[in-house]
């Protein structure tokens, strides 16, 4: 009995020491880790918008986030958009509440700095001040609007949709006319060698250039990917002189309205991604339409 107590004590002490050592390291590295994640997302967004390499981004390129919240007031429900607005030279934020029919309900100024607005925790604290109980707000998602020279370049939307095992996190980019600019898979746990292929260029680049009309009816087909199309999709493997301008235009035209070719033996993952992208894009197009019309009617000068 004495022995057991001794062992238990020794193990507990060791575990506590080990845990504190790990905790300290975690705290010390958390900032760098967050920075890495941020850079990853930034780079992915740049890539999706077609910048990088020999096509540098314009110097006034800005990524403006619109944070969407679901706001409940008693039994009434609203969609709340936290929008960056132009107010002199400073950036300010306004919470625009829209009811479920898409009509303007209320606008509230959110006292938060640009830096703090990007932090989920600080943002919630600032919102708490203007949306006091009985109003309850729940965070939904943040979409990014890329602008340069006062014009919208495109939208980058976060996509989270169920894959084969668990959620797939992706970024979907669209131009102002809702044509798909591309897809980037950020995190997933699909099977290696099968569903993991969704990361590959030959799959994700198939979404590039799909019009909004086509996107609405986009489907997955179980046919082998044609060789020339595959070579065209794998941009990083292009060799000099492999594709002439005419050749590219021809392939683009031929496959523009083509459905998505499924990954061999991973139809579920292929379908999950396609449906996910479709959903994200369609919902966003609807929402941004409503939001834009409200902003225009209420004469709210959003920064985008």
């Amino acid at each position: 009995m004495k022995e057991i107590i001794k062992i238990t004590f020794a193990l507990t002490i060791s575990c506590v020491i080990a845990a504190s050592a790990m905790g300290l390291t975690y705290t010390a590295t958390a900032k760098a880790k967050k920075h890495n994640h941020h850079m990853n997302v930034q780079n992915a967004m740049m890539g999706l918008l077609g910048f990088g390499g020999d096509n540098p981004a314009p110097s006034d390129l800005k990524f403006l986030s619109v944070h969407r919240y679901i706001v409940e007031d008693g039994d009434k429900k609203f969609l709340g958009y936290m929008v960056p607005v132009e107010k002199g030279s400073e950036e300010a934020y306004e919470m625009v509440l829209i009811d479920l029919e898409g009509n303007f309900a209320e606008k509230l100024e959110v006292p938060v700095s640009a830096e703090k607005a990007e932090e989920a925790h600080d943002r919630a604290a600032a919102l708490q001040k203007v949306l006091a109980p009985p109003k309850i707000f729940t965070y939904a998602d943040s979409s990014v609007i890329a602008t340069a020279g006062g014009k919208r370049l495109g939208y980058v939307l976060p996509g989270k949709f169920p894959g084969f095992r668990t959620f797939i996190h992706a970024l979907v980019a669209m131009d102002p006319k809702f044509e798909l600019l591309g897809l980037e898979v950020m995190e997933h746990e699909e099977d290696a060698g099968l569903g993991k292929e969704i990361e590959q260029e030959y799959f994700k680049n198939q979404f590039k250039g799909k019009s909004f009309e086509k996107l609405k009816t986009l489907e997955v087909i179980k046919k082998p990917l044609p060789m020339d199309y595959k070579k065209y999709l794998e941009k990083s493997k292009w060799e000099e002189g492999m594709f002439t301008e005419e050749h590219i235009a021809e392939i683009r035209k031929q496959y523009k309205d083509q459905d998505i070719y499924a990954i061999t033996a991973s139809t579920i993952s292929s379908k999950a991604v396609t449906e996910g992208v479709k959903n994200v894009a369609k919902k966003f197009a609807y929402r941004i339409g409503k939001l834009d019309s409200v902003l225009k009617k209420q004469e709210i000068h959003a920064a985008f």
Partner: protein
Amino acid sequence: MAIKEKTNTQLLVDGILSENPIFKLALSMCPAVGISTSVMNGILLGTAVLFVQVCSSCTISLVRNYIHPKIRIPTYTLTIATWVTVIDLVLAAYVPVAYKAMGLFVRLIVAFAIITMRLEMFACREPVGKSFWDGMGMGLGFMVGMVTLGVVRELLGSGMILGYDVLGFKPLLFFILPSAGFFVVGLMMGFFNWIEVAYNRRKEV
């Protein structure tokens, strides 16, 4: 005991040569086969192992008089796991690119036979200074082994060293594949033994 008579330098050299973890003790073979496809991988994983080995050896050596003999293996595992988590977090935060390539193997260091074995054989009996040098020797020995394998496999498999094109062509793609790891490890082991035998024979003559 023989160990006690060894000086610090001897401990260090022994770990690299006559007790090399990969070529002599044949421990921790899975990473040796799995990740030694390039020199860079060898250096990175070698550094991680060196760090974990030295830190764990020192920790265990420091508390060696307080470890309950019945729970010494759990204590070793806990120590190793802690240091592995530390290096895992640090690598993830400061060298994300390399971490992406070898993240899984870093976590696997917890189960590396070589580290537990050194703690059980050496660190739990010897003072901190000696344990430190033993850990250094073993860690460096592992790193040398990994880098040697990396050089052979990268050169023969992809014609490159550290990502620079040396040969200009790819001699044998086979060496990059996992199964080639066994062949290279086997051949290197034979080579090391052959050198040792030849050296000893010359000494006798």
